[in-house]
Structure formats: structure tokens, C-alpha cells
């Protein structure tokens, strides 16, 4: 009996010792959040403007970023020899990254969206992790690079998991293992946090070093301003400069269709119709129009720009003949001229030539003239003329 009591007492003591020593994941996260400063002060932060120095490929240059409480992010940085712009509205985003061998804006892919969720955070994902729908699991106490850490698994709402290593003494983050991107391709990454400084009672890592593959990226923050005015327009993906030139096409139009009478040597009105032209993607414009030029023509025309060929392209799908016509051309001196080309990889000139000229461009009107040539472009004959006038709202 005495022995049983002894064992029971020992077991009880062990359990008590374990309870008092072992912290729950919530307790660790609470200490972690407290280590970053008063929660009520964090609650007052709506936005922050970060300036500093960013190192990529061993070259240091200026860095600028905006973060907002609702998960928006915008930054301008130098990546090697190129200027890179990144923007994220909390769900989707865009970037201009000349390393991808084009200079126009593009949308972020899924892997990148996950990266920008991380970038947009006010330094720790544990700030409001429950409200944000994230889950956490305590992996345990470990030693990383000689430092005692708590390893915590974070499961984001998008299903991505991260492992955070919090310094067991300071409860500040030491390391994160997460998915990152290298040239838009998903890769594992390690991020290290250092140089914690206090600003207005908030503790923030001023040094962040990230390694993925053989890449090494270092951000040394120099200054942080809280609650700055944020221009919401920066989160909207801009059009490429070339497509922006075709913005005159966008709208709902009333269209007068003139056909050319060779015998009378003059235009005659063939039809009055309407057209809608709009962006169907950031760098793609589409027109839907139906008009009568003896036969009923129902066309869909897409306008794009090939940066590799430095030319505009259009493809017109005819609902009348079920044929496709491809054209390419340039925009010069307020006139947009397209010529038909062979369809396929060989974009040399087709034998029967058609030229589409957009001219007389104003804010509320433009004229599309379509001409034909039977002598390889030496002479052009008028065919159809469409005069566009913007419809009132």
C-alpha cells in the first residue's frame, strides 16, 4: 500500500511538472504576439510604408513597400539589373518582372498568390490567425542553429503549410520554412528574421534573409511609417503600354456602315448597327459586331500585342463564312493600321491583301476603313467603312 502511494505520488508530481513546463501552442503564440508589442497598438495599425535596402544577386538597392491591414501589398524593388513592381489586393495580384523576358504586367499565379499572402502580413501570421481561418499545431521544442526554438506548423486557408521556429527565449520568430517562388515556379524556402527593433512600441524584424534554391535575398529595413495614406489604384493591374494605346476602342458604339460603290465611285450607307468593345483580359481587347454588307456579317475580333514581334495582332472570326482572318500592324501618328497575314506560324503577307485602318480617332469616335489590294499592296481599293460614335450612357 505504501509502495502504491509512493508511485502514485511520483506520477502525480511528474504530471504536474509536465503541465507546468509544457506550454500549449496557444500559450506560445500568445507570448509570441506579446513579444511583438501591445496587441491594442497593432490593432491601431491600418497600413505601413516600408523603405530599406534590398539585396539580390549580391547587389544592394532601394526597396519600397506598402502593406495594409486587409492584406494588400505593393512594392518596388531592384532585382539584379531590372526594376520589379509587385502588387496584391489580398486575393490576387500582378507584377511587372522583366526577368520573365517581357515588361508588361501579368497576373500572379497560384504559387505566387501564396507568396504574396506571406509578404502582405504585418510580419507574423499569428497576429490574428484564428480570425483569418488558419490552423496551428505545435511540433515541439527543437534546436536550430544552436538556438532553442518552438516549431509550430501553420496551415493556411489555401491549404499551404509553413513551419515557424520561434525563439524559445524571446518568442520572436527565428526561421520560417514555407513555399516560395523562383521565376514564378514554386520552390521551398527558408526565411530568417533578425535585427528586431521597436517602433512606437511595436517590435519588428528589420532584417529578413530568404534562401530558396541557390537564391539569397536580404531585406534590411531602414524606416517604417504607420497609417500612411494608401493609393488603392496601385493594386489594380495596369494594362501594357501598347494595349493602353488601343483604349480608344473601348466602349459601346453606334456604327454606320458604308460600302464602296465602284461604279458610282462613292460610299453608300449599307447599315446602321452597334458594337461593344471591351477588355476580356488585361492585354486583350475584343469587339463583337454584326452588320450588313450585302450579306449579314457577325464578327468577333480580338486585338492583342506581340512584344516579341513588336506588332499588334488581330484575329477576326466571321460568323458568316466561319473563316478566320489574322492581321498585324502598328500604331503610328494616331493611326492604327493592320494588314492581313497568313494564318499559322508563318506570318508573311497573304496573297490577297486586306488593310484595316483606324483613323480620325477622338474621345468619342473613330473610323475603320477596310481596303483591298490585288497587286501586293501597290494600290488599294476601298471596300467597307465603319464610322463609330460613342453611345450615350
Amino acid at each position, binding site marked *: 500500500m505504501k509502495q502504491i502511494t509512493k508511485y502514485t505520488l511520483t506520477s502525480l508530481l511528474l504530471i504536474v511538472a509536465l503541465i507546468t513546463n509544457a506550454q500549449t501552442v496557444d500559450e506560445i503564440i500568445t507570448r509570441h504576439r506579446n513579444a511583438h508589442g501591445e496587441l491594442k497598438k497593432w490593432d491601431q495599425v491600418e497600413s505601413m510604408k516600408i523603405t530599406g535596402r534590398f539585396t539580390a544577386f*549580391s547587389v544592394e538597392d532601394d526597396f519600397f513597400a506598402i502593406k495594409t491591414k486587409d492584406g494588400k501589398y505593393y512594392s518596388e524593388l531592384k532585382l539584379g*539589373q531590372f526594376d520589379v513592381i509587385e502588387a496584391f489586393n489580398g486575393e490576387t495580384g500582378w507584377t511587372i518582372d522583366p526577368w520573365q523576358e517581357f515588361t508588361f504586367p501579368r497576373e500572379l499565379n497560384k504559387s505566387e498568390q501564396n507568396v504574396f499572402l506571406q509578404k502582405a502580413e504585418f510580419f507574423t501570421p499569428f497576429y490574428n490567425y484564428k480570425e483569418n481561418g488558419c490552423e496551428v499545431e505545435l511540433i515541439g521544442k527543437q534546436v536550430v*542553429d544552436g538556438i532553442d526554438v518552438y516549431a509550430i506548423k501553420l496551415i493556411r486557408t489555401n491549404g499551404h503549410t509553413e513551419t515557424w521556429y520561434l525563439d524559445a527565449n524571446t518568442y520572436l520568430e527565428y526561421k520560417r520554412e514555407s513555399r516560395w517562388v523562383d521565376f514564378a515556379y514554386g520552390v521551398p524556402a527558408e526565411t530568417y528574421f533578425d535585427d528586431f527593433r521597436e517602433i512606437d512600441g511595436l517590435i519588428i524584424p528589420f532584417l529578413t534573409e530568404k*534562401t530558396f*534554391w*541557390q*537564391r539569397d535575398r536580404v531585406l534590411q529595413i531602414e524606416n517604417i511609417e504607420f497609417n500612411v495614406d494608401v493609393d488603392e489604384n496601385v493594386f489594380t493591374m495596369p494594362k501594357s503600354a501598347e494595349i493602353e494605346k488601343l483604349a480608344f476602342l473601348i466602349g459601346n458604339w453606334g456604327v454606320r456602315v458604308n460600302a464602296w460603290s465602284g461604279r458610282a465611285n462613292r460610299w453608300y450607307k449599307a447599315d446602321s448597327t452597334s458594337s461593344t468593345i471591351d477588355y476580356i483580359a488585361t492585354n486583350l481587347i475584343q469587339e463583337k459586331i454584326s452588320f450588313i454588307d450585302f450579306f449579314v456579317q457577325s464578327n468577333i475580333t480580338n486585338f492583342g500585342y506581340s512584344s516579341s514581334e513588336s506588332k499588334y495582332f488581330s484575329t477576326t472570326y466571321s460568323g458568316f463564312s466561319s473563316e478566320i482572318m489574322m492581321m498585324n500592324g502598328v500604331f503610328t501618328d494616331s493611326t492604327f493600321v493592320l494588314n492581313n497575314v497568313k494564318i499559322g506560324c508563318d506570318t508573311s503577307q497573304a496573297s490577297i491583301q486586306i488593310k484595316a485602318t483606324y483613323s480620325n480617332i477622338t474621345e468619342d469616335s473613330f473610323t475603320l476603313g477596310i481596303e483591298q489590294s490585288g497587286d501586293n499592296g501597290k494600290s488599294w481599293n476601298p471596300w467597307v467603312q465603319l464610322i463609330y460614335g460613342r453611345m450615350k450612357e
Partner: protein
Amino acid sequence: MEIKFKYLLITFLILVNTIAGFSQNTKPDGWYQFRGPNRDGISTESLSGINWSETKPELVWKKELGSGFAELTISDGIIYTMTSEIVDSITGFEYVAAFDENTGNELWRSQVDSIYFDVDGWGNGSRSTPIIDENQIYSFSGHGKLSANSLKDGTLNWQIDFVEEFGTTTPRWGFASSPTIVDDVLIMEVGGTDSRAFMGFNKKDGSINWSSENGNASHDSPLAATIDGKEQIIFANGRKLFSFTSTGDTLWTYNMPFGSLTAIPILIDKNKIFLSGVRTPGFIIIEINGNTATEVLNGNSMKNDFSSCVYRNGYIYGYHVAALRCVSVETGEVSWTKRGFGKGSLIMVDDKLLVLSDKGKLAVVKATPDAYTELISFQAIEGKSWTAPSFNNGKVFVRNLTEMACYNLK
């Protein structure tokens, strides 16, 4: 009479010894080739007896230098390296050049090729480090021209264009392999067609001694080492390791689990070779016994990108991507990690690491697995610094893409 005879005999023996020494391949003194006297990043000099807490590094000189990544090779009071000059956005030249070790003043320069322009913006000019020999310096340009210039005045004695002569394809980011000399044979990774991946040249006139194997030109440099009493040249090319004698006979080959190494193979102990790259696994250690190579350890605790490690007493010191680390070669375990040097470089002098950050900060660190212990650090040079330091006559020499500098550490 007996004393006179004794002196005569000693004089005679000294004379014979001297003549015999000259008739053999006499290796130059100093930091005369890539990664130093033994191509292992280790100086044979001493850095002991210095009170580091009271030491302030003295800038001996700092000079402008054209773009290039070649190390500063030094012998007999003269620095030899590669430099370049840009004329306009599409024109420029690469030079092998000589400078006074004490002043940094240029003694001569000799044009060896047009400049290699790097399309990714990493930096223009030569990537390879020249090697100093008795009378000539051998250099390898970014476009793949192997040149022999007179040490005295830079006169170009002979030159071979690898692309033209051997059908070599220029690797992305240019030719980078550094030449080595074994038994009077100038040995190069060529990457040519028709079994001309590796070649030995007569160093006097550039004629071909031998050629062997197939493989493209890489960015790696060969190790010259004595294993099992045999002097051999070891190339890491593609996913394969090759060992040759100086006459081109293949001693052994080994299929590596990774490829595209840039860091030079490192001899550890007497018959083991450490190889590291940035992919997985990060490193392997192979053991050579009777011309058979066997893997004895692999791990991910050390992943070298372009910077090579040094080895001392059972531990490898080097860059795990961008973190300076000490790793046991017995277990692969990390003894310590230090961040903040970026993708820098390092060499070892005595029992001290000379660590250069990728932004030109130089630190002297104890080469011990106990802990990262920094003895002194200072900003030696500004801007991107991817070239490892050199050490000669108690002084450390550093360069980047625009300048070079010499510091006295004692």
C-alpha cells in the same frame, strides 16, 4: 686542406641541387594559382601571434581595376590577374595584367580577347583565374581563349581559341574553369567535340599533349592532388567525376548524384574528396582506394553555389548557399552557422578563416568547430565581391568588379 675540400664539396652539392631543382618543374612561390598554392584555399603562411583585439588592418593600397572575377595571383612581388575595359555597349577587351605587389601600380597589360559581356548582368570580363609558371602566365578568357604571356613584359607567346579549335560551346555565363599545371603539362577542361573534354597542352608552345573524354565546358576548375601516391587531376564535369594522370591516362571515374558543380573538389584527409553543389544532396564525400571511388557520406548541410570550401581537421568551412557554416566531414552535422556574409567567399591562413562577404566585408574568424568566433572585421572593398581573397607575405588581397585592395593584417 680537409676544410677546403669540405667547403668545395658543400658548394658542389648546393650547385648540383640548384641545377637539378631548375631542371624540374619548380612551382612558384606565393598565391600563384586559383585557390592558392595547393588549390585548396589554404595559405602556407602563418597568422599566429597577433593580438586581434589590438589589431587594426592597415590599408596598403587600393586601385581601380576593370571588371572580372579572376583571383589575384601573386608571386615574386608581382600580382597577376585578369582585367577588362569597356569601350561601348558592345565592344571591350579582356587583359591579363601585372601589378606591383607593394604599390598596386600596373606594370603591364596584354590584351587577350574581346570582353565577355554577361547578359544577365552578373558582371563582365574573365571568370577564370590565371596560373603563374616559371616564365609565363596562363590565362583563360570569358570567350574561351587560352593564352600564354611572358611574365616579364606580358608578351603574348601563344594562344588557343577553344571555340574555334575544338568546337567548344560557350557555357552560359562564359568560360570559368581555371588552368592547372602538373608535371609541366598545362591541363584544361576544354569541353570540345570528339573526345576533347579534357586536354593537356605543352606549356611552352601550346601544342596538344593529350585529349580525353566527352563533356561540355562547365564552370568548375580541376583539382590537382596526390592520392595513394599518385598525382592526379580531378575534374567534376556534368554528373561525372574524372581522374587523370598528367599524361592523360584515366585513373578512375565516378557517377555523381548531382551535376553542374562550380565549387572546386576538395581533398580531405589523404584519399577522400568533398564535392558540393547547390542541389540535393548538397554534398558527397567519396573515398578513393586503388582507383575505385566509393561514396562514404552525403548530406544537405552544405550546399555550395559558386564559392568553394576549405578543410581543416575533420571539418569543412564554407557557404551553405548564403550562410557560412562549419560541418563535420564524419557526420555531416552542422557545428555552427553564421549569416550576414551573403554569397561570399573564404580562404584559410593558419587556423584562421578569412571570410569575404559578397559586399566586401572581410572578417577573420577562428577555424574551429566550437563556435563562430570573429576576431576582427572591416569593410575591405565596396560593392559586389564574388572573388575570393588571396593571401601573400602577410597581406590579404581582395578585388571586385571595379577595384582591388591590399591590407596588412599584422
